[in-house]
């Protein structure tokens, strides 16, 4: 028998990285990406997804242990403008963060799991995807390894809908 499990809890997928076509940059980024695979790997869940303007939400996260350990951990909820751009050879994305809420910040105590709360600003712009320009909301997870190593720097995209689109 199906039981009411409460609001749906959605595991969020990481935002894909944009790579340059330049070979040297590609090799450098690939090496960095490979090293980052050895970092603790974050999984993030948000309840009530997709969110609406003004919604409060709970974020849960967990880490799969890696070869490195983190010194600190910062989890923010960010809204950003993104524009695809090109200089003829490379394509890149201009990003401007217009809203940021800190959900968790502090030394990493080794806890595999954690949770926090956030609110979507009611006066903000909802998610939008147009040709070459978009508004994207994301849970941004950053952490500094204890050894000289690429940082944990992952985005988990969250869909934010207009208030009337219920």
């Amino acid at each position, binding site marked *: 028998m199906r039981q009411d499990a409460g609001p749906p809890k959605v595991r969020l997928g990481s935002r894909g990285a944009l790579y340059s076509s330049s070979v040297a940059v590609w090799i450098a980024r690939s090496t960095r990406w490979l090293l980052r695979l050895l970092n603790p790997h974050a999984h993030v869940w948000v309840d009530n997804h997709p969110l609406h303007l003004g919604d409060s939400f709970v974020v849960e996260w967990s880490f799969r242990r890696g070869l490195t350990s983190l010194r600190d951990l910062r989890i923010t909820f960010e809204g950003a403008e993104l524009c695809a751009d090109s200089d003829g050879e490379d394509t890149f994305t201009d990003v401007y963060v*217009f809203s940021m809420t800190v959900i968790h910040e502090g030394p990493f105590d080794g806890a595999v799991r954690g949770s926090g709360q956030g609110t979507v600003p009611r006066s903000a712009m*909802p998610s939008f995807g*147009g040709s070459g320009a978009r508004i994207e909301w994301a849970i941004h997870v950053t952490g500094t390894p204890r050894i000289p190593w690429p940082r944990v720097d992952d985005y988990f995209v969250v869909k934010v809908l207009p208030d*009337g689109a219920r």
Partner: protein
Amino acid sequence: MARDEVVGTIELIRPDRRYLPGDLVEGSASWSLEKRPSRILIRLAYRITRIGERRVRPGAVAELAFVNPMARGECDFRFRLPYEPYSFDGELFSIGWAVDLRVPTWRGDRRLAATSLTMSPTGDPR
């Protein structure tokens, strides 16, 4: 008839041109052309404009087409706005709404008139 006598107008009933998501956009259009066009198009659309660029990326939402109209004419129109995207003034790009009056030509649509409007829960751009 001289080319500069080809004119069109778009008038919205609401003078402040500030709308809420889902509102009705009502108004009238008029045109005066050299000869009878095959069609007259009235289009509600949002446009994405990159800051510092003139290029505009349109996103048409609704369109009314009047087939075989007279060279001079006028008509009323009514569009229901969607719930998104809101009008937006950002650092990298902006989103604006407009009602366009267009006439098709062999080189593509020619815009005779356009009237901008804003759409958001407050009526102001985000």
